[in-house]
């Protein structure tokens, strides 16, 4: 189930504004998790690092291959999911909840509006 309030990149990262004001939460869509297969390793930036919309911020690795992770928004990293680094299996069990990757303080919240909404993302998946 794709959460309606989230927005997406074509590279399958999701972002929601909140839950705290002035913060955005970034994760990876269930579709991408399924495509990757067993996720065994994750590399994320540290708190305080800057991320830029459309630019790689980290790497996710399955048994088979490594893939870059792209940021849906620009801003400063204010939270990193340490538990996920230790237990990448969380991606499988709760991709839109416990498997969040970063919390970011957006530089420009308007960037959010430029991303795919849930309906558009679903349509995009159908065309893949």
């Amino acid at each position, binding site marked *: 189930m794709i959460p309606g309030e989230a927005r997406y990149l074509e590279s399958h990262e999701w972002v929601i504004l909140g839950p705290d004001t002035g913060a955005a939460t970034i994760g990876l869509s269930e579709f991408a998790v399924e495509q990757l297969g067993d996720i065994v*390793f994750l590399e994320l930036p540290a708190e305080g690092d800057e991320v830029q919309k459309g630019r790689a911020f980290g790497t996710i690795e399955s048994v088979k291959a490594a893939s870059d992770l792209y940021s849906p928004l620009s801003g400063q990293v204010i939270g990193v999911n340490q538990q996920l680094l230790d237990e990448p299996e969380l991606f499988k069990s709760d991709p839109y909840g416990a498997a969040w990757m970063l919390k970011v303080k957006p530089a420009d919240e308007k960037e959010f509006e430029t991303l795919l909404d849930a309906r558009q993302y679903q349509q995009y998946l159908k065309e893949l």
Partner: protein
Amino acid sequence: MSEVNKTTLYERHLSLGAKMVDFAGWQMPLHYKTGTVQEHLATRKHAGLFDISHMGRFAFSGERAVPFLQHVLSNNAAALDVEESQYTIIPNSSGGAIDDAYLYRFYEDEYLLVVNAANRQKDWNHFQQIRKDFKQLDIIDRSDELVMLSLQGPLSRKFLTGVVDSGLLPEPIRNQLSTVTINGVGVLVGRTGYTGEPLCFELFINSKDALMIWDLLIDAGATPIGLGARDTLRLEAAMPLFGCELGLDAEGNEIPVFAEPLAKYAVSFSGLKGDFVGKNALSRQFKALEKITDRDYSLIKDLPRRIMPVALMGKGIARPGNKVFVGDKLAGYITSGTMIPYWETEGEGLSTRFLDEHAMRAIGLALLDSDLCEADTVEIEVRGRKIPAVIVPYHLRSEAPPCARAILEQDLFKDISAPTAEKVTTKKVRRLLDKAIQNHTWRQRECINLIPSEQTPSAMTRMLSVLDPVGRYAEHKPMKAFLEMEVFFYQGTDFILEVEELLKDELLRYLGCCEVETRLISGQMANTAVFSALVDYLNRADRKAEQRRIRRVMNNHIIKGGHLSAQPMGALRDFVARDPKTEKPAVVNFPVVGDNPYKIDTAATQDVLARYRPELIILGKSVTLHPEPVAQLRSFVRQLDLNSVIMYDMAHVLGLLGSYFQQPFEEGADIVTGSTHKTFFGTQRGIVAANYSREDLRYQLWEAVNRRAFPGSVSNHHLGTLLGLLMAAYEMNYFKDEYQKNVIDNAKAFAMALHDCGLDVAGDKEVSFTETHQVIVNVGYSKGPEIARRLEENNIIVNYQAAPQEEGFTASGALRMGVAEMTRFAMKKEDFKTLAQLIYDVIAERTVKEKVMSLRGRFVDMKYCFTKKDFAHIIEKLHKLI
């Protein structure tokens, strides 16, 4: 092959929820529902089933099949007997690999070569190109008609056995083959695989039957495994994948075949191969490898880099193509790498058990500069970051069936901790004495000892063993200049001379022969001395050339109970020639009876003898239930006019030699060897005996045995235990009639009682399962070590034993027991019946330690020895002296 191919099992993969991918033009399962990690783990703990029908299968037949295979493959195809297989490379002329492959010989006149799916067409074209020079050769592509499944993992044997209606699985040795019937259809089975699992099977099935057999194995409990886990499993086993470890490297250069460690086993320079594709280049690489192995890098340009396993020590994952550095110097590239799972374990050694939790580790294979060595650290560049890693010898070990065991980098290079130095010496001394007394009391008064290779020497024998000649030297040899008089090299040895003469007399009387050598200090040393003497004897006409080895030896295979010391891996190693055809030690084994693998099939033996004409025949076993067919062998040797030496290693049954068991020299043995402390009463030593008279040509062999004893094997021949052995020989000659009869009667009663308890006793019920001191009980595949440990906790000491169909001692499903020692402590048939029930109770997980201790408590005084009351005064004196 441009269109997408589907295997016979395509629909089944879909219905099992597989994620399909295109692989080398084939739609193949990448993984099923649970994913690669779980599939990897399931194979290591249970059993995985793989569809590998996408691989190519070419059949070669016709008169020129073997010469063709010798020419296009790197291994020695002529070495394969029917029902054997081998790993091989398809080399190109420059010493690179066109492909790697497996060659199977299921039938006398057909060879089946399995090649990689991606190289199928290329290999086929290569063969077609070369076959023009080979008339009378048929090559058939059987890939479509034969489906290939792979069943791997600790439970694979159980699952496969469960579905087989008839036929035997291959002998429990890697690369052995057989044919079985499953649900009415014939299936070819090989003990091969691509996972490193010690229990591994690959099945060749007619394509119409494949789905049925796949489903049967899945229903039996096998987990379907996709290509993802196939790759992680082979990586963990450090097996090469063409395109990664073979073929072209990251810089586009050809990887020399000898860069791959398995090339040592896959490339043969046997004279039987003649000139084969790539021979010169491979030979250059091999010479370089020999030097590199000695850390001599003068030829390194012929083999600049080699494949080595690496384990990552920092966070991250190495991937193919990643650069590897030593300092700032580029030292090579990762060829395969990922993060793989392994089962967490508890316990140590043989008690190691897989838990339900798993962990992950990042490992790889790398093509690295040949001057790098195991334990060297390197850095792997991953996305601009350098991750420290270490070169390890392996990631996985397969020699402890039924499981493959993951070996972690942090466990390999542990610092050896300094010995905890106990400062106070008196404390250490007291502790040692206390412990020794404790152990002695436990083993002598509280335990029932059923180890068939052990015996307690009598009190007198033990006391004599520590008296003065202990610690002395008495080197001596007969000199022809003095008419064969023994000349001693040290003074003060008259007593030893006398003891040795008396011991010889006593033993010759016991053995019924004319020569005995008593200076060897173990049974294994006795065998080594005989093998060495035979080599010396065979070369007696030529004292200049390199000595030739024994051309052919016939023995009992170790998995059929043969002595370790009679195997090429044991004492025979340096004395037996290599068979030029098989490139293995020239040993042929006695055939065994179909329904009793512990008995030599004498009728079939005659044909084997005629075919191989061994120079040495070694009878005798360490798992021994029957007399050996000495008389029949003597008559075959005579009929076939063979020049064979018939040797009987009686280590286990030396103390049974006589009318109740067998008399080897009367039956025609040339040489008997043995240890003196199993059924015999002695201290721990070895002897060689022979029946060659001085007029006999073979007397020269006997003289060689004497020389190989001294100075060949011993300088000081442990004079204390020699003295003890004389007492043991007196005891044996005096008490043997009653003792030998009681041992065999007790063994039979014990075996019958175990059988009556419902246990599975091996052997022939017609003879009450045994005709020796031994009893073998099957307790269930791989349960032997655990049950033996539980028996020890209940004060019953036995040893676990791999039965003939089992893969190795860690997978033992049997217990080996002997009644000799407890018979000597006066246990009778009724007492062994009581003991049988106690053993049954322990197997049924009941605790009987108290009962065992009270049983043993009734049998602490030794029989069949000279007792105190006749010699009280002199025993007193001995005690004081010591």
